[in-house]
């Protein structure tokens, strides 16, 4: 790839294509390569318990990328993301489930198949909901998608063959590809542990998902999304087909949510219908806002921060004496963790509306023009 001119005038773009390229500066190319190398080597360097958390963060990032497409890029507020994550999780569990087991199962072991299946079924539900989105705007849409979470949870509670019922739950889909069983621990035999293998798997899926999201964002579809977000009437005047692109936004977002749902419980191996509550939707909203609206890298940063939050909260009682680690005393770390979601959302929106990406952007700009202030 040629960057700028061959004679090294950095950031001199001679055509539109260079400006819109995926890695449009040399620093970005090197930075992304370095991050990928570090991420790929991380399982060898970091203890397994931290790896579980980071792996969870990567899966959250996949789901949050979907929410960022619909809410960040296309500006359609969705509080119903948890529902689509749930649809994905159950689709994967059913497709990969044991046909002779207690709950529904089709016995498809081939991972790419159930991963895609989970995404597609969730996308189908997204496409079914989308017509509502085209009729409604802004906060009406937020409330309807909130209703979706409650209705969805009712269905998950009620359909016992699918979900195992409230507080019982069922086993999640086990990732397995070309004879590699990702959920089997081979650490004691000198092989890879479960945590290491799952981290690599999640990383691979996230990289594919992130590149795809970035490509959507810088294509015709992404520009249409941005136009709808900034002013839908103006977008309509310019010839953007609102219905068409809103349906695309919801379908894509639900696809991401479905894939994230399929992978979300592979580490713990079990999940209950209680998981897909409003709290999960709020968690995804928090990731998008804390990370940075309409940014891919910010979403990933936000997801890792939110995933690490329980761990950070868990470490706190050692430093903050009045915080208890027992759930029956107040104030305890679980309450602290929840309060932190709220505080982080409010604080970021008030003081750094562009999220973690905004902070990074500021640091970058400072050093770019160093020693001048601008």
């Amino acid at each position: 790839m040629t960057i700028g001119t061959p004679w090294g005038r950095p950031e001199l773009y001679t055509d539109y294509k260079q400006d819109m390229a995926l890695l449009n500066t040399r620093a970005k190319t090197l930075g992304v390569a370095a991050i990928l190398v570090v991420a790929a080597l991380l399982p060898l360097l970091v203890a397994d318990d931290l790896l579980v958390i980071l792996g969870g963060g990567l899966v959250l990032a996949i789901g949050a990328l979907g929410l960022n497409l619909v809410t960040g890029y296309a500006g359609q507020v969705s509080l119903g993301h948890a529902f689509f994550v749930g649809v994905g999780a159950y689709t994967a569990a059913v497709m990969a489930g044991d046909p002779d087991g207690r709950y529904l199962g089709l016995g498809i072991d081939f991972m790419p198949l159930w991963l895609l299946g989970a995404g597609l079924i969730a996308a189908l539900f997204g496409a079914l909901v989308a017509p509502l989105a085209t009729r409604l705007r802004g906060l009406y849409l937020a409330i309807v998608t909130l209703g979706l979470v409650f209705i969805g949870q009712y269905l998950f509670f009620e359909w016992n063959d699918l979900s195992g019922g409230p507080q019982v739950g069922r086993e999640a889909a086990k990732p397995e590809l070309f004879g590699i069983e990702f959920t089997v621990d081979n650490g004691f035999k000198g092989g890879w542990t479960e945590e290491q293998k799952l981290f690599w798997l999640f990383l691979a899926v996230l990289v594919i998902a992130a590149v795809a999201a970035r490509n959507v964002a810088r294509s015709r579809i992404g520009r249409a999304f941005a136009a709808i977000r900034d002013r839908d009437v103006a977008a309509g005047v310019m010839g953007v087909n609102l219905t068409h692109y809103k349906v695309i936004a919801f379908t894509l977002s639900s696809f991401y949510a479905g894939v994230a749902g399929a992978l979300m419980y592979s580490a713990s191996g079990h999940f209950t219908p209680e998981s897909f509550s409003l709290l999960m939707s709020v968690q995804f909203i928090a990731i998008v806002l804390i990370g940075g609206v309409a940014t891919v890298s910010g979403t990933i940063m936000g997801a890792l921060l939110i995933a690490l939050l329980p761990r950070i909260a868990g470490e706190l009682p050692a430093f903050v004496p009045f915080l208890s680690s027992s759930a029956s005393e107040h104030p305890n770390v679980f309450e602290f963790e929840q309060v932190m979601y709220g505080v982080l959302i409010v604080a970021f929106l008030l003081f750094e509306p562009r999220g973690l990406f905004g902070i990074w952007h500021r640091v970058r700009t400072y050093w770019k023009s160093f020693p001048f202030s601008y």
Partner: protein
Amino acid sequence: MTQFLGAVAGGVGLGSVYALLALGFVIIYKSMRVISFAQPAFMLAGAVLVSYLSPSIGFVPAVVVGAIAIAGVALVVERVAIRPMVGKAVFVIAIITIGIDIVVRVVAGAFIGRDPRQVGDPWGIDAWEIGGVYIAHRHIAAFLVTTVLVLALFAFFRWTPIGLAMRASALDQEAAMAQGVSVGAVFAVSWALAGGLAAVAGVFAASGRTMDQNLWHIALAALPVIILGGLDSLGGAVIGGLLIGVAQQVVASYHRQWFPGLDTNIGSITPYLVMLVVLLVRPYGLFGTREVERV
């Protein structure tokens, strides 16, 4: 028939709670064009506060003090977190209110504690039996108090200067400012009113049962109410609240006969189902102002 009338009586009680909550949502929406997702937290906080106050100062004073205190909390929240964001995208402000909701709700929830806690209302689960129909005292009390509050609110908007200012700024904010209306004061009053109404609603929602963390789900069911009534219609909020309350109780009561195959009572999601159906037919609710838009 007695089953139906009993369900309707219960529904009117529940609907009164919804109506109070929905009024809060609508008042804030009319002044700022924002839905405050912090209402559930104010409702829970109000109920918890009253449960602490009523043993020492009596139930009625506790409700009054609780409502005023929560109105004060709402004022502070509005000033600190919402006012700096005025003029930003409504979606951003709505999300901020979600953040506030989480913080306030968790802090209030921490005070519930392990022991069963009640708001100390004088009605409990007492009921009159009229021709085989049981009508709980608390439902009648909720309905009467809601009626009084609604009349007081309408009088407030109709005859007081600040009420006039609120109506003016709801109609056209810039024109109201040009006439000397302090829009900041309008925002503050609307948040305080919404907070106080939520606290009263919380007391009635919590009466006849012990307090638990899930009380705030009731306030979320008031969201379909404002959608049904229309986001900017006070009358719609009251009528929508009663309609949804009655519909929910009737469905909950007849669940066994109508849906014998379903284990979980479908009453809990009835408000959302009604909302979906209404929105498909009338995207701006039953009494909401239709946005005129030409492309």
